[in-house]
């Protein structure tokens, strides 16, 4: 969680330095969700797919953090050689399938990954993250229907961070109990906490095991909060929420919560925690340095990877 937090802090700095362009969405405040759920998966076997707030998952799935940050900076050392950017991180080898920019558009792809596992009679589980905003998309309901119809082993996790970009939940969803999205399709559905990493991990293990065993879909609404704005360019948070609300929610910080737990139960000393923080800060500095020193792509690379077996026509 601390790695994600510091990594995202550094991404924000890089954005302000002009090293990152376009849209960038950080995971600050939501770390416990990705970390808790990932802990329940079989590494290199189970599939994960998410939308554009996608830096955290590869960092905890075994991806090379330098290649993640280099991609965010559009460098040739990135996972997609600078062609994807912040919203489109992929590490297929480690079963991370991105990284998608159209709200709700990736949800059938998540069902498709689970379809492939079922088709091949493999016991892989797929986690498909989506936001509360995406939970209104028509294609998401289509995906729920087919996931239930064909018994696809996929867990849809609606990360309810209370805002669809700058629009609060009650202004975009007729029913704000988003876990109920699964019920009309007969999909087992629950609303769960997303801020207490130990509780998240326990819930995740229970549900991942159930899906693997029963080969059926599951829907989870995870309650968390986006400490940051929607994207790095979102400088008007007061238009949709107050400073007081932000301060109140900061008290739910998953990292502070874990630190408090470790302290109260004498599981880790303050010194040890500080040492970990320092170590991670140094590590993130090194990641940043290596990424920023990765070269920009050469102009001719623009034609590569349009097709797997031919180049597109060249020239303007």
């Amino acid at each position, binding site marked *: 969680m601390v790695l994600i937090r510091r990594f995202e802090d550094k991404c924000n700095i890089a954005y302000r330095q002009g090293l990152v362009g376009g849209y960038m969405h950080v995971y600050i405040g939501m770390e416990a969700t990705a970390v808790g759920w990932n802990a329940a998966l079989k590494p290199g076997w189970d599939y994960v797919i998410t939308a554009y707030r996608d830096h955290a998952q590869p960092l905890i799935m075994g991806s090379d953090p330098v290649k993640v940050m280099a991609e965010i900076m559009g460098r040739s050392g990135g996972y997609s050689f600078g062609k994807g950017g912040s919203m489109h991180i992929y590490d297929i080898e480690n079963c991370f399938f991105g990284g998608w920019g159209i709200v709700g558009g990736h949800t059938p792809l998540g069902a498709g990954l689970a379809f*492939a*596992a079922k088709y091949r009679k493999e016991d892989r589980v797929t986690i498909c993250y989506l936001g509360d905003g995406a939970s209104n998309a028509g294609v998401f309901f289509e995906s729920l229907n087919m996931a239930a119809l064909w018994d696809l082993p996929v867990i849809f996790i609606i990360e309810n961070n209370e805002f669809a970009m700058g629009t609060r939940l009650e202004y975009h969803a007729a029913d704000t109990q988003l876990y109920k999205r699964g019920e009309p399709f007969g999909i087992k559905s629950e609303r769960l906490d997303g801020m207490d990493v130990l509780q998240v991990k326990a819930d995740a293990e229970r549900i991942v095991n159930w899906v693997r065993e029963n080969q059926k879909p599951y829907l989870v609404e995870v309650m968390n909060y986006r400490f940051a704005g929607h994207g790095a360019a979102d400088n008007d948070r007061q238009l949709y929420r107050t400073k007081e609300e932000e301060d109140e929610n900061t008290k739910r910080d998953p990292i502070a919560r874990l630190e408090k737990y470790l302290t109260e139960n004498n599981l880790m000393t303050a010194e040890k925690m500080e040492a970990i923080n320092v170590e991670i800060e140094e590590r993130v500095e090194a990641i940043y340095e290596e990424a920023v020193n990765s070269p920009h792509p050469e102009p001719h690379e623009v034609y590569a990877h349009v097709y797997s077996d031919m180049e597109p026509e060249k020239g303007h």
Partner: protein
Amino acid sequence: MPTQELSYRDALRMALVEEIDRDQNVFVMGEDIGRYQGTFRVTEGLFQKYNVEQNDWRIIDTPIVEPGFTGIAIGAAMTGLRPVVEMMTMSFSILALDQIINHAAKIHYMTGGQSTVPMVIRGPGGAAKQLSAQHSHSLEGWYAHCPGLKVVAPATPQDAYSMFKQAVRDDNPVIFTENPGLYTIKGEVTTGPDVLQPFGKAQVLREGKDLSLVAYSRMVHVCLEVADRLAEEGISAEVVDVRSLLPLDTETIYQSVRKTNRAIVVYEDWKSGGFGAEIASRISEDCFDDLDAPVGRVGGLNVPMPYSRVLELECIPNADDVMAAVRKLG
């Protein structure tokens, strides 16, 4: 290699069966393709053969939700499966444009080559008979506009067979469009496990020296009819079947134009901004010195497809329309 007379529809089905049998990763999904056997009967008998007799989940009936099942096929393809997605008509693929354009076409690029999408989207494209405004679109030009897709429009039973097999084996998303007017035409088809027609190769279906008629899909047959009529007047027309829009074989088209010095491009899509306009533009740009007349274009009328058979026939280019364009060239 064996040769037999087949309809375009039967050639397609034979190719599909051979590819399903060849590769366990190949499966078919779409609306009414299984138990109902497909609205145009391309998948006739396949549900019984695979799902029932072999207990193999290869022919998958879907709900009527093009974005959803296209997206599921894309996700499955990213893991190496090879879905063949049937659009009941290509007009319905408009619902799935986000999945096709924003997702399938971009995945190889956005992943920096980590992933491919070996998927075929096939179905009838263009006017059938009185299906009116929402079921008669020719969308191949829309798709050929988009890098990352391959787009083919075979005109003959042979190409239906050998280009379909090629499409299934291609690692990139392929739009395979079949004009509904072609399903019943018959022709000699050479078959065999590896009878494949690589994309990006146009073919000269009839040689001539006075004029090049350039077309794809059903309009190729209109051009062949025009060539017969012109021959009676002593005019020798060459017919070039483009068959692959993306990639496009401009060289075969240019060679023909350099020989005949005159060209007319014929396409069923709306004339304005259709793919024929792209072909005409290229000929004008690259063969200007070889041309004795401006490049002619014959396209569909720029109106929504009407229901009335009289009005529908008014919209679709026919041999008379092409003959009029020939006269205009002088």
